C-alpha cells in the first residue's frame, strides 16, 4: 500500500523529518504517537504535498507509484486523504458545493460515474448523519464558525464521501467529547476494509481502545524510534516518551 523510505523533509530551512521509514500494508491501521513537535503532522503534510514542505531525501510510494512528484490534488485523486489537525475555514463556499467539487473530481479521476445531484445530496445527508452532524451543516460555509469538534466530524464526513484508500487522521480525536469520540471511531471502523489503510495520529491511548490498531509507532525527532503492537500504546501512557529517547540515544 504505502512504503516510506528514509524520508527527509524540511520546513522553512528547518529539518523536521530525518530519515523516516514506514510500511503500511492494505487493510492495516497504524497508530502514530509521539511528543509535540516531533514531526507527526509534518509527515501527513509531506505525504499530502503541502506547499513549503520540502522533501530533501527518501521516497514514498502509494500502490507502487511515487507520490512525491505529484501535485496535491493528484495525490488526493490517487486516494490519499488527510484529515487535518486544524481544519481551515472557507467562508462563502458552502460545504455542499465544496464536497460536490471534491467528489466529482476524485470520482472522475478514478473512472467512476459522476453522481447526479439527487444521489449526491442523499449520500451527503447519510454521511452527515453517520457523524452526527445536522444536515444543515451542508449549507454552511466550509468549517465557517464550526466548533472544534464539529470541524473534526466534518473532516470525517468528507473522508466518508471520498472513500480514499489511504486515510491519514491527524489528531481527529482531540477536542472531541466522549460521545463524538465514539461516533468518529465507529465511522472509521465502518470504513475499515482490506483495501483501505489508516494512519491514525493521536496523543491518547483511549482512542485506540475504540479504533484498535494493528501497529503502534513512536515518532520522535523526525524518525520512527519504536514500533510495536497495540500494547505499546499502553506502555507509552504509563511511561511517557523519555525512556525511548534514552533507549534511542544509547542505540
Amino acid at each position, binding site marked *: 500500500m504505502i512504503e516510506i523510505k528514509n524520508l527527509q523533509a524540511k520546513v522553512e530551512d528547518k529539518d523536521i523529518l530525518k530519515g523516516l521509514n514506514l510500511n503500511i500494508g492494505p487493510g492495516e491501521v497504524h497508530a502514530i504517537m509521539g511528543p509535540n513537535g516531533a514531526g507527526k503532522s509534518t509527515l501527513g503534510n509531506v505525504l499530502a*504535498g503541502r506547499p513549503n514542505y520540502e522533501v530533501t531525501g527518501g521516497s514514498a510510494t502509494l500502490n507502487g507509484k511515487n507520490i512525491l512528484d505529484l501535485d496535491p*490534488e493528484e495525490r488526493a485523486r490517487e486516494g490519499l*486523504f488527510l484529515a487535518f489537525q486544524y481544519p481551515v475555514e472557507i467562508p462563502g463556499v458552502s460545504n455542499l458545493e465544496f464536497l460536490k467539487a471534491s467528489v466529482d473530481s476524485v470520482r472522475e479521476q478514478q473512472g467512476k460515474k459522476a453522481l447526479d445531484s439527487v444521489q449526491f445530496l442523499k449520500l451527503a445527508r447519510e454521511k452527515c448523519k453517520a457523524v452526527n452532524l445536522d444536515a444543515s451543516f451542508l449549507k454552511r460555509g466550509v468549517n465557517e464558525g464550526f466548533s472544534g469538534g464539529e470541524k473534526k466530524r466534518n473532516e470525517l464526513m468528507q473522508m466518508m464521501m471520498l472513500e480514499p484508500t489511504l486515510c491519514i487522521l491527524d489528531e481527529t480525536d482531540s477536542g472531541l467529547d466522549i460521545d463524538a469520540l465514539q461516533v468518529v471511531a465507529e465511522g472509521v471502523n465502518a470504513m475499515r476494509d482490506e483495501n483501505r489503510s489508516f494512519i491514525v495520529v493521536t496523543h491518547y491511548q483511549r482512542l485506540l481502545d475504540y479504533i484498535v490498531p494493528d501497529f503502534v509507532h513512536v515518532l520522535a525527532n523526525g524518525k520512527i524510534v519504536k514500533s510495536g503492537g497495540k500494547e505499546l500504546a499502553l506502555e507509552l501512557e504509563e511511561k511517557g516518551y523519555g525512556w525511548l529517547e534514552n533507549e534511542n540515544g544509547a542505540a
Partner: protein
Amino acid sequence: MATNAEIEQQIAGNEYKAGFISDIESETLAAGLTEDTVRFISAKKGEPEWMTEWRLKAFRQWLEMETPEWAHVNFPKIDYQEISYYSAPKSMEDGPQSLDEVDPELLAVYDKLGIPLHEQMALAGIAVDAVFDSVSVATTFRDKLEEAGVIFMPISEAVHKHPELIKKYIGSVVPVRDNYFAALNCAVFSDGSFVYIPKGVRCPMELSTYFRINEAKTGQFERTLIIADEGSHVSYLEGCTAPMRDENQLHAAVVELVALDDAEIKYSTVQNWYPGDKEGKGGIYNFVTKRAIAHTNAKVSWTQVETGSAVTWKYPSCILKGDNSIGEFYSVALTNNFQQADTGTKMIHLGKNTKSTIISKGISAGKSSNAYRGLVRMNPGAEGARNYTQCDSLLLGDKCAAHTFPYIESKHPTAVIEHEATTSTVSDDQLFLCQQRGIDTEKAVSMIVNGFCKEVFKELPMEFAVEAGKLLEISLEGSVG
C-alpha cells in the same frame, strides 16, 4: 505547488475571450472634436433642431470643464482630438427593419461573444437592443412589447418618435454640466437605448442591451434613458465587450433612470470591456455616469458585475426624492493585471423614510488597484431614513491593492447609517485544503471568489448570474494547459 504565487501565475495567463476584431465594413468619422463634429453626428441622425442645439450647448460647456482628478486612478492625459466620435457599420446605412436584415457577420460577432441574440433570447424571453460601436443594430421583440405599451428602441429613433418624452427627461437626472464626461457624452452621444413603461404596466420580459466597441480609435458614447411611469415595473440588463486593441479606447456613457411614484426599476450590468494586456497595454477607459431618481414609494436597484476596462470610473447613484423610496446598489468589481477601478455609488436621501442598501464586493488580483468610493447623504428632509453599507474586499496575491473611501453626511438626527467593511485574502491553507480534496487551484479560486460574490449574484437575473460567475472565472484564470 499551490501557493499564492501560483495563482498569480495563473491569473497572469488570463486571455480575453471577447477580444477578436470583426471584419465589418464601417463608416468612421475622421478623428477630432469641434462644433462641426457635433453637427455632423446630429445631422447623421437627422435630428431636429432642438436636439442639435442641446448638443452644441453641452459641447460649449464641456470646453470650459476639466477632467476630474479626484478618483484613485492614473492614466495618461486623453487627447480628445485623436478620437473618432462616430462609427457605424456600413451595412447600417439604411437601417435594418428586422432581425433578418441585420448583417449576418454582425450576428456572427454576437454569436462569438456568446450573446444568444435570436433563438436563445426568445427562449429566455428577453428583448435585446444591440449597440455596435455607435448605432443600435437590432431590437428584437418590439411587437410583443408594443402590445404591452412598452417603448423600447434606440434613443436616436425615440428622438423622432417620442420627442416630448426625450425633451422632458433627457438631462433631467444627469444634468449636462454634471461632470466632464457626462457633458462630453451630451455633445457627441451616438446612440443607446430608450425605454418607457406606461403606468401600471409590468414589462412582460427582461430588456437587454449589448454594447460593443469594434472600430479602432473610436470612442463610444452611448446614452440610455429609462422611464418607468407610475406603478410600473421593469428589469433591464446591459452587457459590454470590446476587441483587443493596443491603444486605449474611450467609453463615456450616460444612463438616466426615472422611477415615478410606486414604480420599480432594476438595472443590471455585466461589463467586460477589454481590460488591456498583461503589461497593462491597451484597454478601455470606462467613464460612466449612471444615476436614477426615485419618486414616492419607488424603488431603484443597480446591480453591476465589472470585470473589464483598463480604467473604470463609475458610480451608479440614486436620488431618493420621494418619501419611502428605496435605492439599492449591488456591485462586484474585479481587477486583474494593471486594471484600475474606482467605483461605488451615491445614495442621496431627500425624502422621508427613504432606505438604501449598498453591498460592494471588490476583488483585486495581479498588480491591479480596486477602490470603492461611496457617498451616503441624508438631507435635512430625510426623516427616518436608513442606509446599510457593506463593503468587502478580497485580495488575490500581494501585489494588488484595495481601497475604501466611504463618505457619510447626515443632516437629519433620526437618520441611521450603518457601515461595515472587511478585507480578506485567499490563504495558502485554504487552497491546500481544496487541493487535498482533489480540487485544483483554479477551480478552488473560482469557488472562493464566487462564494465571496454570492450576495450580489443572487440579485442578477438567473441566466446572467451563471454568466457572471463564468466571467469571473475567465477573468481570473489562464487557459489551462
